[in-house]
């Protein structure tokens, strides 16, 4: 056996979602080593011991980055639920005679190549991105943490099979997999895109969840619970899950931003959503041929996309800082 003190099991850790989630994973790995926040955290004013979560929440409330990104995300959720609140127009009402025209009163962002109002389309495009991001993240987080958590808890053959399966998934470039799988889909809804992301994204979370569960499993309180005769399901749900969920939440939040970017990329390549759906990726793709004459049609949806992704990545960053005492 080779002597490899610093070589972790995840040495083959691949670049799942274009690298972004990988980094999130490696940054979050410091969390795995410290389940439960590690060490005594002092007691609150009432003398009651504070949990990792209440401590983290106290930190977050004071973090301007968290407040700013949370406000942006709240606004995004609001306009995706109720876009007509600030953009009463119809995103599909276009007038070719106004194609590529610049901003004017009532149309602050100008018109795109088809003469559609860029402002209305940009606001209405939020729904697609938020839906894809939230649904894909939920799916990936649930599937990944259940599979990875069970593998880490029970170990053995199931664990070996799962680890090799994740290796296989990491070896396939994500954009490429999306092109192949989604090129046959004719349904023009977000669900095939979400399904594809869950299918190719779960190994990322499962690897994190597996590591976190293995670390948590070795803690004394788990041994104690076992000695007291607790059933495996009780140990897993009551003792391990609450202490292993932090890294999963951090990675999932950052991944949410990358899923939104991935949806736009796939739509840009023509395999995600297709017109007449309204999505930032479609609008950017449609505006790219007119980039010389009407750069505004490209810049507004791009800006909205960038701010959205940025908000989720910063939120994930802030949550990680709050949950990881080592960084203080």
């Amino acid at each position: 056996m080779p002597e490899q003190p610093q070589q972790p099991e995840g040495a083959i850790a691949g670049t799942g979602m274009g690298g972004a989630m990988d980094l999130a994973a490696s940054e979050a790995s410091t969390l795995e080593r410290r389940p439960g926040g590690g060490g005594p955290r002092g007691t609150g004013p009432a003398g009651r011991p504070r949990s990792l979560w209440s401590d983290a929440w106290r930190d977050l409330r004071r973090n301007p980055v968290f407040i700013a990104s949370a406000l942006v995300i709240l606004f995004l959720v609001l306009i995706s639920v109720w876009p007509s609140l600030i953009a009463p127009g119809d995103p599909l009402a276009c007038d070719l005679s106004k194609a590529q025209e610049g901003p004017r009163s009532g149309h602050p962002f100008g018109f795109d190549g088809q003469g559609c109002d860029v402002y209305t389309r940009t606001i209405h495009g939020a729904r697609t991105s938020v839906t894809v991001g939230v649904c894909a993240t939920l799916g990936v987080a649930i599937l990944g943490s259940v599979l990875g958590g069970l593998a880490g808890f029970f170990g053995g053959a199931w664990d070996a099979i799962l680890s090799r399966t994740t290796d296989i998934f990491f070896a396939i470039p994500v954009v490429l997999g999306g092109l192949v799988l989604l090129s046959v889909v004719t349904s023009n809804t977000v669900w095939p895109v979400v399904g594809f992301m869950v299918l190719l994204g779960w190994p990322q979370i499962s690897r994190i969840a597996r590591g976190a569960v293995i670390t948590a499993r070795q803690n004394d309180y788990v041994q104690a619970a076992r000695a007291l005769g607790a059933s495996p399901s009780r140990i897993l749900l009551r003792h391990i899950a609450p202490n292993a969920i932090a890294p999963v939440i951090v990675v999932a939040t950052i991944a949410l931003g990358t899923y939104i970017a991935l949806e736009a990329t796939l739509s840009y390549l023509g395999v995600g959503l297709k017109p007449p759906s309204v999505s930032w990726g479609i609008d950017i793709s449609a505006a790219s041929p007119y980039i010389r004459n009407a750069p505004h049609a490209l810049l507004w949806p791009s800006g909205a996309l960038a701010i959205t992704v940025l908000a989720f990545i910063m939120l994930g960053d802030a949550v990680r800082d709050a949950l990881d005492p080592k960084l203080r």
Partner: protein
Amino acid sequence: MGRYVIRRLLQMIPVFLGATLLIFLMVNVMGDPIAGLCGERQCDPATAAQLRREFGLDKPLWQQYATYMGNVFTGDFGTAFNGQPVTELMGTAFPVTVRLTVVAVLFEVVIGIALGVITGMRRGRPVDTSVLLLTLVVISVPTFVTGLLLQLLLGVQWGWVRPSVSYQAALGELIVPGLVLASVSLAYVTRLTRTSIAENRRSDYVRTAVAKGLPRRRVILRHLLRNSLIPVVTFIGTDIGALMGGAIVTERIFNIHGVGYQLYQGILRHNTQTVVGFVTVLVLVFLVANLLVDLLYAVLDPRIRYA
């Protein structure tokens, strides 16, 4: 060392077979390759059956996979449906994408690590904060937007470079596309190096090196940087496969005829042999890059030994 490499190579086999099988299944879901072959018209049933027999598509799927893998090991990646051997397509496409990837990795190594060292040494100062903000912005703007914007600014508005790359794709033409391809990873390399440097800066060996009066430059480069590089090297190594596969977007923007272009065409035309062949090579590149990274650990940190 030798035994370790052999063990790792053996471990690669199931991953390689699994990944190729997965892509084989995915491509099969992609639809009937024969339908794409007759263009817009419906294929004549007799012709379709003839073609199916010719390409072995009438056999069960596992048999197709076994035959294909058998051929791949003898260097035969099959024939694209236009009659050109897939290896010939690879011969023209891979050199272009390899050049593009090399440019991108150089950007990551040179600029990414330099910025990471600078910010890691000045943690909390204005330089650090501004670079950190910049990396966040770069990460959140998707590659295709960065690409389109740089093409517009540098290529069209200011005329510094040609907006699209010629067929030969010389190294000089690939600088801007390489930067675009590298952009997101570049930001990650900067952040990773910064974290690693800042963490190791307070370690005992750095204090010792400073205390025995070594010049600052030598402390940073020989002692601090070398010990901080392991996570960075891991990231760059795993990124190589992703860069080559992710070049689809960059190659499309700058009209580069590399791997991404061939794959995109292959997928649009349901050209299964091309798609499976190219992805097989990409998977191999990914696995080999990972192995090289693991071997590089031992160079960076002599405490790591492979028996």
